[in-house]
């Protein structure tokens, strides 16, 4: 670049437009490498998958070739009961786990926000479940809920909640319990830390003023903490929704989608179609649907709820 126009206020005598245009060109050149990388690693595979999804392509059946079928795969998805149940399971899992995580996370964040001895230690300890790889924690929870040797049955039988050990993974309702508990156990720390950061941005003088005016703790929580915590809550919500909607490894290890297919989420169904059954066309169409839904959710949060991902209050 010319280097004649330093950034900052317009230089007198130089036409405004020329400087701005030069600045803009410089800007594009500077971000060009990053844009190229994004194109290469994000948009290209996405475009390829979209193109693949318009074909009938089953690796195990080469005699069918790879004919272009237009939106045929999507029409098949629309009539695929297993897909709609997977969508239902995913939605249920997302809502149930996030609701619990928000409540527990807020409670934990409020507790950690207090000044007490050993606070640093507690904050570090809370992160332990988050630090454990999902597959490992899923195995852990599967052992906890094992029908014969699991501690869940041992405890519930000894306190009289259950008459006899329950085989958790053969009923749809009971198979969801370890699944959701495991996700809540693992992810609540993440929620709590994000909310804690939000809490610490709230000006303490607001609470002092409220206390002087005679407001009790409940009133302070409702009228000061929660409204000012909204940006942080929304950030948590968007991250957790997108994560929960793509849940895969946890359920893959814990239930494998069973009994029948009654805990199978979208990502697991997609995996089965694409990588296990090697139905590249249909599996790609499923991937595109999952992508469209999560992308739509992200847009919804960003535009409708006006979430600012930098965490600033608007």
């Amino acid at each position, binding site marked *: 670049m010319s280097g004649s126009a330093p950034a900052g206020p317009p230089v007198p005598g130089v036409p405004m437009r020329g400087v701005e245009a030069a600045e803009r060109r410089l800007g594009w050149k500077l971000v060009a490498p990053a844009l190229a990388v994004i194109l290469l690693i994000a948009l290209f595979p996405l475009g390829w998958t979209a193109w693949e999804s318009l074909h009938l392509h*089953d*690796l*195990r*059946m*080469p*005699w*069918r070739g790879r004919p272009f079928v237009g939106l045929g795969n999507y029409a098949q998805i629309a009539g695929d009961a297993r897909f709609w149940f997977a969508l239902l399971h995913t939605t249920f899992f997302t809502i149930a786990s996030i609701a619990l995580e928000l409540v527990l996370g807020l409670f934990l964040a409020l507790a950690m926000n207090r000044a007490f001895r050993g606070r640093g230690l507690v904050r570090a300890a809370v992160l332990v479940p988050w630090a454990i790889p999902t597959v490992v924690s899923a195995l852990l929870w599967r052992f906890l809920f094992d*029908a*014969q040797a699991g501690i869940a049955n041992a405890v519930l039988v000894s306190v009289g909640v259950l008459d006899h050990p329950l*085989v958790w*993974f*053969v*009923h*749809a309702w009971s198979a969801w319990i370890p699944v959701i508990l495991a996700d809540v156990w693992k992810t609540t720390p993440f929620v709590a830390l994000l909310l804690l950061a939000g809490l610490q941005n709230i000006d303490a003088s607001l609470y002092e003023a409220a206390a002087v005016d005679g407001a009790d703790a409940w009133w302070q929580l409702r009228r000061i903490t929660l409204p000012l915590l909204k940006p942080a809550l929304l950030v948590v919500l968007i991250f957790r929704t997108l994560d929960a909607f793509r849940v895969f490894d946890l359920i893959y290890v814990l239930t*494998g989608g*069973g*009994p*029948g*297919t*009654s805990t199978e989420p979208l990502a697991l169904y997609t995996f089965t179609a694409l*990588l*296990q*059954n*090697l139905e590249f066309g249909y599996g790609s169409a499923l991937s595109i649907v999952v992508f469209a839904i999560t992308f739509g959710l992200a847009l919804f949060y960003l535009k409708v709820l006006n979430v600012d991902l930098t965490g600033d209050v608007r």
Partner: protein
Amino acid sequence: MRARGLAAILLIPLAAACGGREAGGPIVTTFPGSAVGVEAQVLQRQAADFMRLNPDIRIEFQRVPDDATQRHQLYVQRLNARAKDPDILQLDVVWTPEFAAAGWILPLDRLGADTTAFFPATVQANTWGGRLYAVPWFVDVGMLYWRTDLMDSPPATLDGLVERARAAMDRPEGPPRGIVWQGARYEGLVTTFIEILGGFGGRIMTPDGQVVVDSPAGVRALTFLVDEIRRWKVAPVDVLTWHEEETRFAFQNGTSAFMRNWPYAYPLMNGPDSKVAGRFSVAPMPAAPGGHPSAALGGSQLAVNAHSDHPEAAWRVIEYLTSPERMLERARAAGQFPTRPALYDDPRLAADLPIPPDRARAIIAAAVPRPVTPIWTQLSEILQIHLHRALVGQSTPEDALRDAARQMNRTIRETGVDELQRRAAAAR
């Protein structure tokens, strides 16, 4: 790892060369085998012997996953890309028609395979469009394990099985469970089901490719399995999450009177950590009146990659590995059952197999292959889901099997596999 400019077969980086590489011949035949345990040892020894006898052929091994699903995925991806290696493929019994229909493996008739020396069921499972595509290498069959200290003889009928299971549980100090089988949602559940189905005189598909699993016999078979759990309570509901090993642990710890499992469990349960060592035996799964005792057929086959540069060499290796003497060696080292019935008269086999040869031959003679169709994995997945739904009580056996049959028939129609089968038979 290139063959010194002589043969042009590439090895994947993980390839583990076996002994005798220095022999240096003009042809290298890659061969994927299990990389672990006694199976790998006996295979490497046999490969070394082969190379000593055939200095013009060198065998090199590739490492492939032991897990059947992963190995299947790897094969399909490589063969789709027309990879020339491995020259020899080790196939699960239900893969042969799939690979044959895809044109990924060579028909062996032109290479001179003689089928009369093998168990008919193993030949049937490896035949597509009237031609043999893989040579049965060793055979696996489902069998009924029973406790010799709890009863005098194995049951002769399925009703007798339930009665004896109940009687064993009612004994003072009797086991808490009557029978255990593989009931989790996976291929093992289909093998469990297919034995009871045969016992009631039913089958999954007709030879011309129609799904008839929802026949009255099919409903009776699935109802029998449901009743074992819910009505007669001889099978624990836990089996609906169990694979082979969980059932073995239950039986081995003395907590069940019967078990449905493969032969691999036999030597393990006579081991030092078994509570039933010396107190169990095996029999064919019994049948109901009107049916016949049936054993699910499993096992390994060897086939030649259709894109191999050296099909003749590959065939010679297969011929060697599946010869009677090599099968006896395998039985001795790994306890695996030969696919040649004549060998069961050989006195050497009696000492090597965990099970008396005549009893083993009777069970294998009752073996039924799963439907021989290129889309078995898809059909099986549908069947697994609906069988599991009925077993966990999400639907009735009638509804489950009707839905399964409808979906399976639709898949057969949509994939055009029935047309393909007709064409393959006509081309012959």
